């Protein structure tokens, strides 16, 4: 091979290689950025889930449920003789 084309091919290949490297790095950063964004979203959704879960637990407060049952629904406490265990139940 002649000297000039060889040098051109050699230099071009190296330049292409450098560009591929840069592209690969930028892709990695892009994916990493997307991953971090998703992680942030996941964390905020988890926080919302926890907050809703806490609200649900607070609504299940036994004292409030009892008060509602007695005052609003006019329910009265169960006596022992009102309860029968169904065999096999």
């Amino acid at each position: 091979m002649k000297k000039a084309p060889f040098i051109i091919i050699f230099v071009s290949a190296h330049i292409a290689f450098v560009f591929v490297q840069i592209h690969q790095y930028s892709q990695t950063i892009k994916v990493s950025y997307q991953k971090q964004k998703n992680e942030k979203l996941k964390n905020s959704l988890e926080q919302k889930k926890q907050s809703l879960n806490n609200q649900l637990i607070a609504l299940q407060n036994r004292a409030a449920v009892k008060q509602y049952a007695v005052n609003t629904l006019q329910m009265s406490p169960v006596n022992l003789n009102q309860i029968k265990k169904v065999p096999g139940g």
Partner: protein
Amino acid sequence: MTTIKHYKIRASIIFLFFCFLYACIFFRLYLIQIKYHDVYAHMGKKQYHVTITQAPPRAPIYDRSHHYLAVNKDSVSAFILPKSLENQSQLEKFLSVHFPQALTRLHNHKNSYFMYVKRRLSDAQIKLIGDSNIADIKLLNEPSRFYPLQSAGQIVGITDIDNNGAFGIELEFNAQLAGKPSTFTLENDARSGHFYFEKQTKVQGKTGTPITLTIDSDLQFIISQELQATVEQHDAKEGAAIIIDPQNGQILAMTNWPMFDPNNTDDLTNMEITKNKVVTEVYELGSVIKMCAALAALEEGVVQLDELIDCQNRITTYIDHRRINTVPVSVAGIIPFSKVIAKSNNIGIAIVAKRLGPKIYDYYKKLGFGQKTGITFPGEQKGFVNPPDNWSKQSIISLSYGYEITASLLQLARAFSIVANDGYDVIPTLIINTQSHDRTDQLFSMASIQAIKDIMKKTRKDIQDYTLMYKTGTANKLIDGQYDNTKNIFTCAGILEKGDYRRVIVVFINQVAKRNLLAATVAAPLLEKLAKKLLIHDKVM
């Protein structure tokens, strides 16, 4: 000629000047690249690499049915950066009205970089700060805890401002619940903000491990409501109750009244109400201990169930020149030993205890008094049993009916659990352990256990086809070295059983308003109510 000469001189000066300039640059490069290479490399690394430590979320605490007893929540804290305030006068005006303590701290630490205004803000305070539009006050989310069951507050405990366990299970298992933080190194530049190019884990942490308690939330709630009603009915100082499954030692409910709200501790000034007194307080429990003295006497063979004991038919008598009083309702003449306990006669039990001598101490120790029960709970008291070396002539008499012996309610429940568990030892526990335990040592013979159950059955109450047998105790409180018979503690310990179903219940009421009451009218009705509620709960569940 002169012009050329001048030109050469000027060229030389410029050349030398540039040489000097290059020499300076090369010298500077030498300093940066070679001599101080490590310093600059470290400085660069510091700017590109940020090390952060991240604590894992604190693990939850569950009850036996996997209901939450402690769960995470985010709290909001407000902070300022005192060295870079935009509008100090506006901030100070706001703080002086709403957060005066923060203003004082600001004046004392004007040069600090960071200062909290207040941590764990209430919803109203968050709104107040939001509405004020003061740019200098910034909000920050911090982890904290939410406790769904108020009546379990004294067991579960709370976390402090930094979310570390302050007392109760939160304190005892702090390391397990908190886990271990991870340390990461992030590579970023000045423009990448919260995002990073690379993340390296320097220290791998560990997530916290949840804890499952033996407590049943529903039962705990029901028991605490009944306890509250009794305390209020008698205008008592305080009360406590515990329910144990004697076959495995699991504590199903353990409650104290008054209680505190673990979700609102800002105004908490009386730390006394945060104590789980079932475990952390000891008392002279009085006649309820007679059951233990009787068990010791039966096991030692110094008395028989039907043996007649002369209780002298009087309120006051003397044994070895030591005065003994018994309450008027317990006065009896010559009666069988079984009735001595049923009537709770102090004279009769003292006569039998005299036959036991120092061995009564060994039997009390065998029943777990004067030593810790083995429960994993902070601040457990071991109580005291007066050892024979310290005895006066009165000691054997006092020990037989519950004085010169201090015990926690948990220890009393354990002693009754041993009886309910056919004489086998019981280790009370609050933690559900998946590992199976072999049956422990049999401390008392079946004959003695059966005999003591027969005695207890004399005060039995049948609830449908379940048997509730119990023993009450009314003790005078020791105040300034003197027993005060106007201030009493009322205890009742019982066993509820039918076949394999067994439960031990202990209730305690401290210092009622009305005088001359007995545990039979204060504590026993509560025990019966709890037994009925327990059966309803267990049948429904």
